């Protein structure tokens, strides 16, 4: 059984007394104490020349367990806070639901239902300039 840990921390001085949150999770298979054992590996994808929305992670192309405890990590490796990637999930009616936007340096880690092709993860760069995402899927 593999042991994969994800540790999150966030600090902020928005409030006068400061805010600090730390959380650690060990990625496990759905409903068990058995660690996730598979991954796509860390990948990078560079976009340039257009702002077309494309599939980043496609359910049909990955050996993920539908409805499992899959996790997806995505990071905009750029440093330009003016540019972003729009991150979107398809929904059951085949249109899309935008999750959010990753600006330069921003990252996200989410559970991924991956039930069917309507839950592909799609991305769209905000500019035709060269931009790169790195991403990794942890799955059952």
């Amino acid at each position, binding site marked *: 059984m593999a042991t994969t840990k994800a540790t999150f921390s*966030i600090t902020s*001085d928005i409030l006068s007394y400061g805010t600090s949150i730390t959380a650690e999770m060990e990625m496990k298979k759905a409903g068990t104490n058995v660690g996730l054992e598979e991954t796509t590996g860390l990948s990078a994808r560079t976009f340039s020349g257009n702002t077309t929305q494309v599939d980043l992670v496609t359910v049909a192309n990955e050996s993920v367990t539908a409805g499992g405890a899959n996790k997806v990590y995505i990071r905009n490796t750029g440093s330009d806070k003016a540019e972003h990637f729009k991150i979107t*999930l398809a*929904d059951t009616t085949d249109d899309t639901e935008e999750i959010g936007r990753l600006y330069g340096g921003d*990252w996200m880690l989410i559970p991924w239902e991956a039930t069917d092709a309507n839950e592909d993860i799609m991305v769209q760069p905000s500019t035709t300039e060269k931009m790169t995402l790195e991403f990794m899927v942890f799955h059952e």
Partner: protein
Amino acid sequence: MATTTATLNLTSDDLLSGPLSITATTTCMKAGTTTGLDKVEMGRGKLTVADGSKSLKLATAGGHDGATKVYLCNKATDPTYYIDVDIHDTNVGKLYAGDWLFLPWSQTDTAAELVIEAEGGSCEYEWAIFKEDETLVAAS
């Protein structure tokens, strides 16, 4: 200007043949700017299965296309208990006991609320939302 910094450490010694170590850090800025987010909301709650789907946070016009960041953690300890997380009518994934997520949230329209639902058993949860300032609504 407030400074909010979110850091992720992903590690595993045995998921791959060699050690895995990824660190990602971002300073959370307002959309398209280098000005820090300046509003935070956080809390803790408990969801029962009987509660059904609940809105963790309603999308607001003020948050539309902003750079809001959401942290949510399932504090349950029974591995069979999970929180289903949706944006509007799209299922993002399941947060099993101890799992957390950190995602950007665009609030593309006022229907794009964050929805949570406990399955398997009651789940305590913690959440925090870091966002851009909003104009307060008029008093009724």
